[in-house]
């Protein structure tokens, strides 16, 4: 997997360390991302104040030792909000990606395998989905499903599943024409087991690539939906929503918008860098290059 220049090192932990040294930036971002994940996992156990608790007596306080990131217009602790928000955002992003894949993979499988008018039908449906520029469909679907983060997640997942369906479908088409699949069919192996044993393993890789790229976008999209009021609703604590609720005060009280916004940015940034870094190191064309 790793560049041949490391082949002289014995074990894979040693190789990983050597790779990390060469790719310091990616490693730093991976560390950053891990911290965010850690925060998300440990949020309820850190003894933080309730992020949704409204208390007007402490509203709009500057960042201090009492409130590391200050408080917002309703007196909610922003640091706690950011940490709990990590939990929400990461879960939501995972949810979006998994759902989109879960819907798209079976459809792609059926479409590619069955061929004929079923395939054409699904392809035209996906064309319709792809005729919408990025945010338009999630907004419309979100309005249809109603407010709430779960509905927003579904809305985005439904908007994105055609990508996954297409990826799987093209893998199916490639594998279908492979000789070993034809011989399997010739001896009467049922299509389901062919799908499971031959098609899925081959097509999983591009799906994983797409999913990892989509992860960051999922965070951005759901936060954007929350920002315009179509995603998370109070008392849910979500980064986009936090920025939205700061809109009336952010000019004088910068911390109300800065910290949740930065949180989104850093999370997506780290995630993208890590994904790119892993992809580059697995790319045989780039091996041995600085």
């Amino acid at each position: 997997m790793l560049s041949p220049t490391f082949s002289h090192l014995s074990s894979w932990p040693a190789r990983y360390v050597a790779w990390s040294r060469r790719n310091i930036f990616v490693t730093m971002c991976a560390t950053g991302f891990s911290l965010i994940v850690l925060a998300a996992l440990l949020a309820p156990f850190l003894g933080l104040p309730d992020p949704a608790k409204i208390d007007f007596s402490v509203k709009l306080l500057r960042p201090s030792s009492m409130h590391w990131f200050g408080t917002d217009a309703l007196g909610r602790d922003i640091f706690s909000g950011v940490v709990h928000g990590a939990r929400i955002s990461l879960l939501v992003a995972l949810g979006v990606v998994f759902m989109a894949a879960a819907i798209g993979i079976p459809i792609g499988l059926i479409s590619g395998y069955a061929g004929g008018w079923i395939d054409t039908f699904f392809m035209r449906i996906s064309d319709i989905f792809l005729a919408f520029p990025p945010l338009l469909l999630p907004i419309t679907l979100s309005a249809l499903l109603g407010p709430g983060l779960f509905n927003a997640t579904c809305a985005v997942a439904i908007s994105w599943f055609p990508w996954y369906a297409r990826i799987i479908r093209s893998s199916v088409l490639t594998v279908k024409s492979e000789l070993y699949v034809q011989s399997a069919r010739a001896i009467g192996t049922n299509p389901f087991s062919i799908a499971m044993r031959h098609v899925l393993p081959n097509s999983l890789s591009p799906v994983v690539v797409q999913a990892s790229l989509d992860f960051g976008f999922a965070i951005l999209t759901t936060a954007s939906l929350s920002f315009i009021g179509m995603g998370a609703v109070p008392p849910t604590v979500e980064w986009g929503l936090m920025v939205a609720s700061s809109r009336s005060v952010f000019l004088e009280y910068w911390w109300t918008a800065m910290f949740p916004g930065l949180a989104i940015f850093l999370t997506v940034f780290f995630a993208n860098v890590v994904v790119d870094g892993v992809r580059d190191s697995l790319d045989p064309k780039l091996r041995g290059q600085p």
Partner: protein
Amino acid sequence: MLGYLLRRLAMMCLIILGVATFTFVLSRALPSSPVEMMLGSKPTADQISQAREELGLDQPVAEQLGRYFFQLAQGRFGTSMRTGRPVIEEIGQRLSATAELVTLSLFLAVGLGLPLGILSAAYRNRWVDHLTRMLAVSGVAVPVFFLGILLQMTFYGGLGWLPLQGRIDSIVMLDHPVQTFSGFLLIDSLLSGNTAAFKNALIHLTLPTLTLMLASLATILRSTRNLMTDVLGTDYIRTARAYGATRRTTYFVLALKPTLVPLLTIIGLTYGFMLGGSVITEVLFDWPGIGAYVVESVVTNDFPAVLGVTLVISTLYLSINLAVDMLYFVLDPRISV
């Protein structure tokens, strides 16, 4: 090529029909009935059923769909339930506001992104390249609304140089009204020598344009760099250098054309993305564009407006994609006309 174009156009019409159907069915499933909204608070049951009959909402869905297509074919997009004005009129107005914003953003994104991307590919792994790659990754990771807020904080809140929201100050519009030629305030005010309006429109355009531009800039930077790097590694560029081509000629002539052909596709697609992506920017800056219109219509369940605007945006988006694909025929000599 003509055959290909015709086939694609036919396909596009089919897809648009599909979009219309899809959106229509969706809109009928919207939770709160638009009728109640239209009639105001606490309508009686009689009033509701009468209104439904008037709007044709009591008919089977298929029939409603048919009627809608019939109206569409006549160019009637219906009346907005929220404002009472013809949807098509509202869309027209809003569209030019968005178009001005998006076009300017794209100009900037390409004007900055293309040269930087070329430099980045030419001087790989030097500081220019690292800066560019950092910009590219950041640009895609920054949430649009956060960037907008940061810019507002800095240039309005902190420095006071630029306005917070809106397309033009109403005072300026009243004192120096702008004649409509193109719908673009910048062009229209220039054409009639209206410098006050021009300056005012320009300062209002600045922040939203910068906000919208960043993500596209990042994409163009990255794509240019990757495409140019690939081209610079080809045999034919090696041949050119072997015959004494200077660095400048190589980067800006010989390698540029092969890069531009796929790059123009990406730029076209970016333009399409921006049409939809302007939603957030328009909401944040109170920009009277089509993105904000979508949100307003969807939130108030104004389904003629939702239908109309979805159709228009999708058609535009598909047309841009088609136009960009057809560009290949013109630009790539290997594809025969």
